[in-house]
C-alpha cells in the first residue's frame, strides 16, 4: 500500500517536472529561435545597448568615455544601467553581435515562465495544473515573446519583479525574513533595470509590506536593518533620479507636464479646468490597459513596438479573460492569491498611464503576468466547469488546437511578416552595410546624418574600437553627462564621418557616401560621371534601405 502510494506520488512528481521542462523548452525555443537573424532587423536602441556594453567591457567606460555610469546617456534617453552591465557577460563570451546583445532578454523571458509557475504554485498552495496553465499562457503570449526577442530592458525588469515577488512570498511562507529581504533587494534591482519600475516596484513592494506588516513587525530590529539595506541600495538610483537626465523621461513623457496636449478640448459641455481634464485623461489612459480592444485586437498604429497582425494576447483568449476576471475576483478559492496578483494588476500600468501613449506595451510589460494569470483562471475554471470527462477531453483538444494555431501564427509573424512589413522601423540593412563598409578599410566614409542615429549601428556592426571612438568623437557629449540634452550632430571617428552630405566636398575628396534612398536618386547617380553607385541595400519589399556611392574627383586626372 505504502509502495503503491509512494510510486503514484513519485510518478506524479515526475510528470510535473517533465511538464515544466517542456514548457521551459517551448519558451526557450520561441524566444531564441533565429534570434540573431540580421534580416529580421536590429533597432538602434539595441545597437546602443550592445555597443555600450562592449565599450564598458573593453575600456570600463561608455561610448562617451564616462566611467561606469549609473544611467547610460545614449541618445539622451538615459538608459537604465542593469541590462547593459549584464550584457557584458554574453558579449565577453560570444563577442559583440545581435545574439549576445539580445541574450539577456531572451534568457529573462525563458526563466520568467518557470518563475511564474513556481510563484503561482506557492500562492495557490500547490495547485500544479493551474500554475502550469498560467506559465503556458505566459509562454505563448505575443506580448511576452515580443519583448523577449529584442534587447528590451523592461523584460529583464519583469523577471526581477517576478524574482522579488517569489522571494517575498516564499520567505513569508517558510517564515524566513532573510528571504523576504532578498525579495525586497530584487525590487530595488528592478528599478536599475527599467525606469518605469521606479514607480511600479515601490507600489507593489509597499503593498506586500502592508500585507505582511504583522509578521514583519514581530522583529523590529530586522525590519530597521532591512530598510537600512534597502535605503543604501536605493541611494544611487534616487540620487541619479534627481539629475535632469534622471528626470528626462518623466518630464518629456508625462501627461502632467504643461506641454501635454489634452483631449476633448472642442467638445460640448467639457470643463475647461486643466487639472480635471488631465486627471480624466489619466483615468482614460489607465483603463485603456484593461480594454479588450487593446489586449485582444491588433493595433495597426504601433509600427515599431508591435507585430503587424497580432494583439498582445490572442483573440480566442477574450472569453477566458472576462470569465477569469469575474471568477478571480468572486471565487473563494482565489482569495489567498488575490493579495499577490491584484497589486500587479492594478499597479503595473501606472507608470505607462502617466505617459501620453495610448497603449505602451513596453512600459506596461509587467501587466503581462497578472493578465496571464487571469486568463489561466478562465481556462482552468472552464475545464472544471465541464463535468463530463468527454467534454473535458473535447475542450482540452480544442484548446490544444488553438494553442498550436496561435504558435504557428506567432512564429509566422516574427519570421516572415514583421521583417517584411516593418523593415524600416526595425532598421534592416545595417548588418549588411557594416560588412560592405569593412571592405573599404582605407577610404574616408561619410554617413548622412539627416535621418536617424545611424552612427551607433556603424559602431556596432564594424565593432569599432571604443577607445578610439571615445577619444575622437565620444568626448563631445561628456561635459554635463547627466544634465545636458545636447547631442553632437556631427561626429568623426576613424575613417567615418557622420555629417550632412556636401557633394562638392565629397567629390573633391573622393569619399564614399552612405545614405538612404533620399540621398540621391538612382537615375541621378547613374547619369552623373562624378558618382559611382557601389552598392544598394534593399528592404524585403525591394525599396532602398541604403545607397553606397563613390564620389569621384574628375579634375585630379
Amino acid at each position: 500500500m505504502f509502495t503503491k502510494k509512494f510510486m503514484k506520488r513519485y510518478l506524479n512528481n515526475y510528470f510535473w517536472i517533465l511538464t515544466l521542462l517542456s514548457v521551459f523548452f517551448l519558451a526557450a525555443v520561441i524566444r531564441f529561435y533565429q534570434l540573431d537573424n540580421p534580416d529580421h532587423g536590429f533597432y538602434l536602441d539595441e545597437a546602443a545597448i550592445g555597443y555600450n556594453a562592449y565599450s564598458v567591457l573593453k575600456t570600463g567606460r561608455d561610448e562617451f568615455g564616462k566611467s561606469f555610469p549609473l544611467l547610460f546617456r545614449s541618445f539622451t534617453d538615459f538608459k537604465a544601467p542593469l541590462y547593459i552591465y549584464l550584457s557584458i557577460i554574453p558579449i565577453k563570451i560570444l563577442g559583440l553581435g545581435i545574439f549576445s546583445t539580445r541574450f539577456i532578454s531572451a534568457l529573462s523571458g525563458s526563466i520568467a515562465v518557470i518563475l511564474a509557475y513556481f510563484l503561482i504554485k506557492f500562492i495557490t498552495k500547490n495547485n500544479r495544473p493551474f500554475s502550469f496553465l498560467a506559465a503556458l499562457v505566459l509562454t505563448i503570449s505575443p506580448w511576452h515573446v515580443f519583448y523577449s526577442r529584442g534587447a528590451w530592458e523592461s523584460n529583464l525588469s519583469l523577471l526581477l519583479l517576478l524574482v522579488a515577488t517569489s522571494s517575498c512570498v516564499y520567505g513569508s511562507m517558510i517564515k524566513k525574513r532573510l528571504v523576504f529581504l532578498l525579495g525586497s533587494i530584487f525590487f530595488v534591482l528592478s528599478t536599475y533595470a527599467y525606469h518605469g519600475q521606479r514607480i511600479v516596484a515601490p507600489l507593489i513592494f509597499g503593498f506586500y509590506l502592508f500585507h505582511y506588516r504583522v509578521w514583519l513587525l514581530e522583529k523590529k530590529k530586522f525590519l530597521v536593518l532591512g530598510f537600512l539595506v534597502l535605503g543604501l541600495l536605493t541611494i544611487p538610483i534616487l540620487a541619479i533620479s534627481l539629475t535632469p537626465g534622471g528626470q528626462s523621461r518623466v518630464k518629456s513623457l508625462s501627461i502632467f507636464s504643461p506641454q501635454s496636449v489634452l483631449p476633448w478640448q472642442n467638445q460640448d459641455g467639457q470643463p475647461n479646468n486643466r487639472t480635471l481634464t488631465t486627471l480624466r485623461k489619466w483615468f482614460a489612459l489607465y483603463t485603456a490597459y484593461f480594454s479588450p480592444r487593446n489586449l485582444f485586437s491588433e493595433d495597426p498604429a504601433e509600427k515599431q513596438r508591435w507585430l503587424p497582425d497580432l494583439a498582445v494576447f490572442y483573440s480566442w483568449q477574450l472569453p477566458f479573460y472576462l470569465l477569469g476576471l469575474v471568477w478571480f475576483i468572486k471565487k473563494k478559492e482565489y482569495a489567498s492569491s488575490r493579495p499577490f496578483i491584484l497589486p500587479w494588476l492594478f499597479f503595473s500600468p501606472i507608470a505607462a498611464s502617466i505617459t501620453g501613449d495610448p497603449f505602451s506595451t513596453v512600459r506596461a510589460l509587467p501587466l503581462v503576468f497578472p493578465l496571464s494569470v487571469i486568463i489561466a483562471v478562465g481556462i482552468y475554471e472552464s475545464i472544471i466547469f465541464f463535468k463530463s470527462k468527454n467534454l473535458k477531453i473535447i475542450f482540452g483538444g480544442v484548446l490544444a488546437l488553438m494553442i498550436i494555431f496561435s504558435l504557428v501564427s506567432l512564429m509566422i509573424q516574427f519570421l516572415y511578416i514583421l521583417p517584411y512589413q516593418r523593415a524600416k522601423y526595425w532598421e534592416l540593412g545595417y548588418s549588411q552595410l557594416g560588412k560592405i563598409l569593412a571592405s573599404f578599410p582605407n577610404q574616408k566614409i561619410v554617413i548622412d546624418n539627416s535621418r536617424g542615429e545611424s552612427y551607433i549601428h556603424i559602431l556596432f556592426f564594424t565593432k569599432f574600437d571604443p577607445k578610439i571612438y571615445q577619444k575622437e568623437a565620444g568626448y563631445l557629449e561628456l561635459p554635463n553627462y547627466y544634465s545636458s540634452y545636447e547631442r553632437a550632430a556631427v561626429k568623426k571617428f576613424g575613417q567615418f564621418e557622420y555629417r550632412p552630405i556636401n557633394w562638392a566636398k565629397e567629390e573633391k575628396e573622393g569619399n564614399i557616401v552612405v545614405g538612404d534612398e533620399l540621398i540621391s536618386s538612382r537615375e541621378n547617380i547613374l547619369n552623373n560621371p562624378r558618382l559611382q553607385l557601389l552598392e544598394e541595400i534593399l528592404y524585403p519589399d525591394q525599396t532602398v534601405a541604403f545607397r553606397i556611392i563613390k564620389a569621384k574627383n574628375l579634375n585630379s586626372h
Partner: protein
Amino acid sequence: MKNIFLRHCLTIMFLVILFIVIPWRGRSVLPAGNFPFNLSRQQIAEITLYQNILNSVNPAFSRFYTNKATAIFKNFKINFFESFDLNHYFFANHPLERVGVKETEKLFSWLLPFFIIGLFSLNLKSHKPIILWISIIFLLNSVFSNRYYNFEWYLIIPFLFIIGSGIESVYKKIHEKISK
C-alpha cells in the same frame, strides 16, 4: 424591507435623471455603411502581398493563412472590438480616437467605477437577460460597425442597469460598515 424599497426607489430615480442628462444620444444612421463582407481594394492587395510573402513557406499554407475569409473575419473583429471597449462609452474613445470619426462621449467618466462594480455584482444566472441583451448588441455591432450604425444606443438600458447595480452595491457596503 422599507429601507430596501427606499434604496431601490432612489436608485431608479437617479437612473431616470441620468437617462435625461447623459450625453448619449441616438443619431441618425449614416447612409454609407461598410459591411465586413465587403473587402476594400487595400485589403485584397494585402491578401496578395501576404500570400506572396508566405509562398516561401508553402503555397498552400500561404492561402490558408491569409485569404478572403480571414480578411472578413478580421473586419468582424475590428467592428466588435471598437464597440467592446469601455473607453468608447466613458471617454469619447480616448486614447484611441479613430481617424474620420467624430467621437462623442456617451456616459460620464465618473460613472465608470460604478459600472465596473456593477459588472462584478452581476450574477451569471439571474442576470442572464441583461448579459444576453448586451451580447446581442455587441454581435450586431460586429456586423454593423458603430462608425455607421447606431445599434449601440440600445445598450443604454443594460448599461444604466449595471451602473444602478454598482451604486446599490456601494451603498450596501457603506451601510454595512456604518451598521457595524
